Structures are given as C-alpha cells and as structure tokens.
C-alpha cells in the first residue's frame, strides 16, 4: 500500500514538473513574440528546457557592501527571468580563501563563487571550474580588458568571468609632503620625506610586495608548466636590487611595515607620509589624509646606478561556475549577470571595486577615482600573479632580512632564496 502511494506521488510530481516546464516555455514564447520561435538562442533554449525550481548557491566576498550588492543583483536577476522559479542562496566567502574552501569539498561548494585569479590554476586542475565556452548574455572576452581575460584563462581556455581589476598595490601618499612629480621617483621621495621628518612604508617582509622590486629590474619569478617556479633573482641586476633595498632601508626613511595594520597605524600616527598598499585600505587612508590623500603608480628606484620602474603583481577577482552544479547553465547565466557591464558599474559605485569591463572602466565616474587612475597606471607595469606556493616563504624571508640589513653575503642570500623558491 505504502509503496503504491509513493509511486503515485512520484508520478504526480513528474507530471507537474513536466507541465510546469511546458507552461514556462509557453509563457516565454509568448512574451518574446514570434521571433523566438526557431532561433538557436542558447538562453532561450535554456529557459525552455528549465522545469521546476532552479536551486543555486552563490558565494561572494564577506564585505558588507559586497554582500548587499550581490543580493541586489540576485534579486534583479530573479526579476529579469521571472518565468523561471529560482531559489538562490547567498553565502559569504572571502575571495582570498575561496580556493581552500572550494577544494575542501568541491561538491558542497557554491554553484557560483568569486575568487582571486591567482587561485585559478589549482581550481582548474582540481576540476572546480566550468570552462566558459559560450556566452549567454554577453561576450566575456570582448567585453573585458585583455589583462583580465588573460587572468581568467588557463591553457588558452577561458574558465571564469572577470569581475574586478583592482587587486594590485600602488602608492598612497600625503599631498602635503609630496607633489605629483615627487612620487615618480623614490629618491626624490626620500629627500622630501626626510625634510618633513616622515617615513615611507613598504612591506618588504611580504613576497607579494617584494616581487615589485625584482620584477622592476626585469627579473623573473613565475610558475612553469612543470609545476615548479622559475626564478632568476640571483642573476643579472638581482644583487644590485638587493643592495638597493638594503641601502634604502639602512638610510632609514624607507621603512619596513609588517602588515596592513601597521601601515594604517603608521599613517594615523603621522609617521608615514607614503605607503605602498592596496585599494582595500584606501578609504581608511582617505579618512586620515582627507584632502591631502593621493594615489599614484609605484615610483622608480635606483639600483646599481640604473633607474627602474617598480613593478607589481596584478590580479583580478573572478567569478567561477562549479561544474558539479545541478544547474550549470543557469549558474553560468547568473555568473554573467554578476559580472556584466551594469553590475560592474554599480559594483564600483556601491562597493568601490574597480571594474574589469572595458566600458565600465571607461565611464567618467570610474575615471574620476584616484585609486582607479593609479591602478590603471600601475597595470602597465604589472604582471599576473602566476606563482607556485614555494615562492612565498623564501621570498618573504629574503625581504625581511634585506630590510633589516642583516645580510653580509648578498649573493649567498639570493642563491638561498632562489633555491627555496624554485624547489619542486
């Protein structure tokens, strides 16, 4: 008896589901008019093929504004495709830790999640990203800046939707101490800062920042196909750069800051007139410096008698789709919706994140931002962050030792660091 009831119930559910499918299909056909009849529009076929409730989970940054903004977009998305029944849950996961959480259990991870682009290789290797081979609502490659598309591409295949293009470091400075011309050269900055009794903060003990010095002198550090890093910081101008860092630090005006907290503390205390940091601390620094807040690309520095432009890592925040999703199609449409031009424009307004979408980035509001202007200047001297895990600790130790001036044998120190970085 019981079995029969269950069978009956199941049959009924299936029928309703099928009918619901027909229904929504018809509705849409009607609203689109005759045009949609036989087109091969993938979005329309997706809508037609959808029946029942589409359940999706989204992970977005744990920043308040980002959560609010993503929720708004999700609501708008539901309204736009009102013929489909959505059940979309929003969760919080910082972009910087997304990879670890996703890889803990890919099947339990969100259908749509945002992450920082340096995690893309490992996510692709683990099968946690759906290849983006079709665009439902817009052409991802054409709409976004080339650098951002590169950042979302692995082995020639696009795997994610660029969402922002602002994750880099640049120079924040106090306009009452430095002029716009001063901040072009670190040597000038040192002179000016010294005269004002202030310091310039740089996080030498962090490999992410330290990279800018060596990359500026044309030296390489990147992940090869073999899975190990390659690094030539101990050759060519490498020792000169290391010596330069030691000299700048020994002189006392350029100081090592240990973390974001001490960068902000130093500025609040008036010790630092300039710090190298990222957009996440921009509002805190703006509040401190007020009208004197300035942002610019990183300065040039002198090493071994040569002048080099300091480089930086540049990374984007990307939105990826989980191939284990039950509704990959809709997950992709939603990911597109979260990263399209309008979403990126409103994200800049509400969250303050710099767009990767070319049109959104070109809008006058975005162009007016000092941060975005500095970032787009710096991007010319920036490389995508493609580096294996062995890079971080040896390079951080190197930077820390150089800033403390405790190195007697520069070449030996560099050799040791490179050996650690390139260890398989």
């Amino acid at each position, binding site marked *: 008896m019981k079995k029969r009831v269950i069978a009956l119930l199941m049959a009924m559910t299936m029928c309703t589901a099928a009918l619901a499918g027909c229904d929504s299909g018809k509705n849409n056909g009607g609203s689109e008019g005759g045009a949609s009849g036989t087109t091969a529009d993938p979005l329309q076929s997706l809508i037609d093929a959808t029946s029942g409730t589409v359940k999706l989970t989204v992970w977005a940054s744990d920043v308040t504004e980002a959560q609010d903004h993503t*929720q708004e977009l999700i609501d708008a998305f539901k309204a736009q495709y009102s013929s489909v029944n959505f059940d979309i849950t929003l*969760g919080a996961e910082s972009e910087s830790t997304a990879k670890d959480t996703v890889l803990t259990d890919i099947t339990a991870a*969100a259908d749509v999640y945002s992450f920082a682009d340096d995690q893309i290789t490992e996510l692709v290797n683990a099968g946690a990203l759906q290849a983006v081979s079709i665009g439902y609502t817009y052409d991802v490659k054409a709409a976004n800046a080339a650098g951002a598309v590169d950042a979302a591409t692995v082995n020639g295949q696009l795997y994610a939707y660029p969402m922002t293009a602002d994750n880099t470091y640049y120079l924040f400075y106090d306009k009452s101490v430095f002029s716009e011309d001063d901040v072009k050269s670190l040597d000038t900055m040192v002179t000016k800062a010294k005269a004002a009794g202030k310091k310039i903060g740089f996080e030498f003990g962090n490999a992410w920042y330290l990279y800018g010095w060596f990359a500026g002198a044309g030296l390489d550090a990147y992940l090869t196909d073999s899975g190990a890093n390659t690094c030539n910081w101990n050759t060519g101008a490498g020792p000169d750069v290391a010596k330069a860092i030691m000299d700048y630090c020994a002189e006392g005006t350029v100081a090592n800051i240990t973390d974001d907290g001490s960068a902000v503390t130093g500025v609040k205390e008036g010790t630092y007139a300039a710090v190298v940091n990222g957009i996440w601390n921009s509002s805190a620094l703006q509040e401190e410096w007020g009208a004197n807040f300035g942002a610019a690309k990183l300065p040039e520095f002198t090493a071994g008698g040569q002048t080099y432009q300091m480089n930086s890592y540049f990374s984007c925040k990307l939105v990826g789709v989980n191939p284990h999703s039950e509704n990959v199609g809709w997950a992709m449409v939603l990911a597109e919706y979260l990263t399209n031009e309008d979403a990126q424009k409103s994200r800049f307004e509400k969250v303050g994140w710099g767009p990767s979408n070319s049109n959104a980035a070109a809008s006058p509001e975005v162009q007016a931002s000092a941060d975005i202007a500095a970032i787009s200047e710096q991007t010319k001297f920036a490389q995508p962050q493609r580096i294996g895990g062995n890079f971080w600790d040896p390079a951080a130790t190197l930077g820390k030792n150089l800033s403390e001036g405790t190195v007697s044998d520069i070449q030996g120190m560099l050799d040791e660091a490179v050996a650690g970085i390139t260890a398989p």
Partner: protein
Amino acid sequence: MSETNENKTSKPGKMQVNVIQTRSVGVRRKRMIGAVLKNLLLAILSIIWLAPIFWLLVSAFNKDPGINYAHFFPSKGWTIANFFNLFKSNSAVMYLRWFFNTLIIAAFTCVISTIFVLMVSYAFACCRFEGRAGLMRLTMVINMFPGVLSMIAVYFIMKSIGLTESHIGMIVVYSAGSGLGYLIVKGYMDTIPASLREAAKLEGASEFDVFMQIIFPLCRPIVVYQIIASFLIPWGDFVFAKLMLGHDVKNYTIAIGLYGMLSKENLPRYFSQFCAGGILISIPISILFVIMQKYYVEGVTSGSTKG
C-alpha cells in the same frame, strides 16, 4: 636624660627584650622583603596576563573603528557606539544573530553532553558488567587521539546524512562523542561509598532510582563542572564550526563571525567592533561561572584524588 636612658638600657631584662626585639625586627624585615618580592612577582605576572584582556576592553571603546596599535589607550577618544553598532545587523555582520546561534548550540550541547557524561560515568563507576575494564581501556586509547584528526571524516559523514550547514548538525558533532570525557566525573563517583547504593538496592531501588536519588545529588559539584566544561566547548570552537556550518552568514557562530571581521577588507572598519564583540562573548560564560562558582572549585579538585 642620657643618664636615665643609659640606666634603663643597662638593665639586664630590658637588654634581653631589646635583643629579642631587634631579632624580631630583623625577621620581620626579612619577611617583609620576602612578601614584597613575592607580591611584586605576582603583580608583574598579573599585569602580563591581564594586559591583553585590558587592551581588548579599552579597544572596544575606541572611537577609531580601525586598528591602531601605536597606542594602548584609544587615541581618538572614547565611545560606546561600537557596542550599539555591533547590534545593528547588516548583511555581513549579524552579531546578535550569531550570538543566539552560538547560545542555542552551546545550550543544547551542554545539556546533551552532560547527560551523556553522567550516564557513561555512572555505568563505569557504579555498575559491574562484562567487558567494563576493556571498554574503559578502549575509551582511554580513543581519547588519546586529537579530535581534529577525525574532522574530515566527521564532515563527510555529516554531509552524507545532510546535517552540514545546520545547527542540529553542530549539536550532534559536539555532543556525540562527549561521553568519552567521563574520567573526572567517574573519578568523583568512585569516591561515593558503594554501601550507599547497596543499601538503596536492598530497599528495592532500581539503577535509575539510585542514580537520581543518591548519586546525582552527591555529585552536584562535579555536575556543575561538567556543565561549564560542556558549555565552553561549542562556545569557543572555531575549527569544526568553520568546516561544518557553510557560508550562510545568518548561520554563523560567534567565532566564525568575529574571525570574518578581521579580514583584509573588514579590518579598517570593524576592528573596534570586533573588540567589543570579544568582550560581549565572555558575558554568558561569566554569568554561568558566577552562578556555579562555589560548586566549581570544589568540583575541579574533588574528582582528582581518585580516578
């Protein structure tokens, strides 16, 4: 004057008294120095221990929302707004909600695991059955493994029965294995004379009657200890909660929520609120502790003599 003084001091009796006095002054001085040194040491130690907590407290009243560790005391003035702001939920920080989530999980875990521990302890201390010694040895061995070792396994088991991302799942995780922590309570129960139980049994009491009417009332101090200990585990746990609770901000516990407030992007805005939140979570524990304090001290020490 001087003559009379000399006369007085030359008296043999007075002389002795003086010697004794100077000796006792010497002893007293030594004792004084000893006491001062001891207290000085204690003072230094207490400063070292209390300074971080005190810093957390003053930082919670900092007008500056972000971090500034160049000053011990707030440099931009004082405010209690951090506490009020903490209760104004937004989409990323829902302190009040997290607080009650944690409170609910902790309260249920506390009740369930205390019952478990009491049951296991009673069985091992007061009942005699085949395999008792073997079971006790086995539980000892299992207790040797750190709980985090089984974390991933627990996660996948819970996922397969659909209990991840739920508070019920958390309660299950915290209380399921709690019976293993029976040693202290059992040690206490061992100190209760067996003759009491035997007398009750002769009167026709069942095991349940013996437990409820004899063992339980006598065990009150150690039960209190167990209640506080069981409450503290879920209240302060981060690792399991982070793994099991998923990503819905509404479901977070305090520990995960507070951790999120320290992320790179949130730090400049939420640091002082984080400190305020840290102060507030100590309140329920303090209340629980104050209520049960007089039993607690007795409970911690009394089980330890026999085990």
